[in-house]
């Protein structure tokens, strides 16, 4: 892996500048059942294709942001701060709950 990623604050950097925070998933809003809790904690969709991910600019501004990336080609569709990510909760409260099918797991 040596693709480039654009930090919304700092600009384009080597991917080695960043920390990977995994795919965006939804934290339950209310007390989940134990099964739902385990699904949330341990299951990932792991798609071969475009997924929404958390990234952290570890070597730069040290801010978290959202990226949409094709996991098969490493093509990055966009990067944005959580509040600015297209399709995010318009209230800007939680980028985590905005995944299309993330809710399917719960």
């Amino acid at each position: 892996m040596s693709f480039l990623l654009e930090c919304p604050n700092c600009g384009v950097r080597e991917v080695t500048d960043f920390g990977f925070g995994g795919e965006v998933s939804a934290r339950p809003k209310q007390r989940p059942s134990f099964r739902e809790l385990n699904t949330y904690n341990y299951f990932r969709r792991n798609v071969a294709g475009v997924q929404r991910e958390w990234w952290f600019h570890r070597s730069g501004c040290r801010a978290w942001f959202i990226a949409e990336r094709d996991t098969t080609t490493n093509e990055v569709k966009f990067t944005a701060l959580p509040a600015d990510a297209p399709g995010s909760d318009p209230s800007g409260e939680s980028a985590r709950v905005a995944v299309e099918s993330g809710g399917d797991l719960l």
Partner: protein
Amino acid sequence: MNLDFLSAGAAAADGAVARSPMEAKARAAGARFDIRDGWNVAHAFAEGAEEEARAATRTAGWADVSHLGKLELQGPPDQLDRIASECGAELRLGEASRAGEAWWCRLTTTRALVVCEARVTDALRAQLADASAGAEQVTLTEVTTNFAAMTLVGPGAREVFARFCALDLRPAVTPVRALRPGSIARQPGILIREAEDRYLFLFGWATGEYVWSAVADAGEHLGGRPIGIDALSALPGPARAEETLSA
């Protein structure tokens, strides 16, 4: 209680001298030290400032400037803009502005770092504290000793960086005053292109010895040498950027 214990300047009294993490490395390379603004600084090497400046103009030179003051502001974007503007500065992502003997660096929309000459740290901190007093959610933190710092100068500076840094420093991509947070020598860093052939970069205090080794290893192989801050101030520097801004 307050956070005075974070402030290198405010903390010092009774002749306590502040020391850079690169002091031992500079001493081993032949540095001469002098106490300035409470800091033990490597102001020159055996050859003297003139010769050091000449050498740096030929190839590359690096100076320990860890004593530069660093102040962090966090808060809502409009508040940060207001405070900067009251101090005659601007905060923009990707570009540092120079005002009041300081570089004003916006790292994120809500976080800024002000890097200033050591002699103005305390005054600037007081000024920023006044400007942010009463503003809800604005926090001011002195982080002088969070970051060690080095200035790399000379026509060979970019080639020296190329040995340990993946940042694209070509003039078209990184013009003068460009602000580039990113990995330097495999450590988190913040780089400012202060002038044509002059780069200031910040890195973690605890990595000082390591970064000095990495820079010296690359730089000496390319014919560069360490220089003192006396030589540094004789070379074209950030002052010019300040003039440009005010003009």
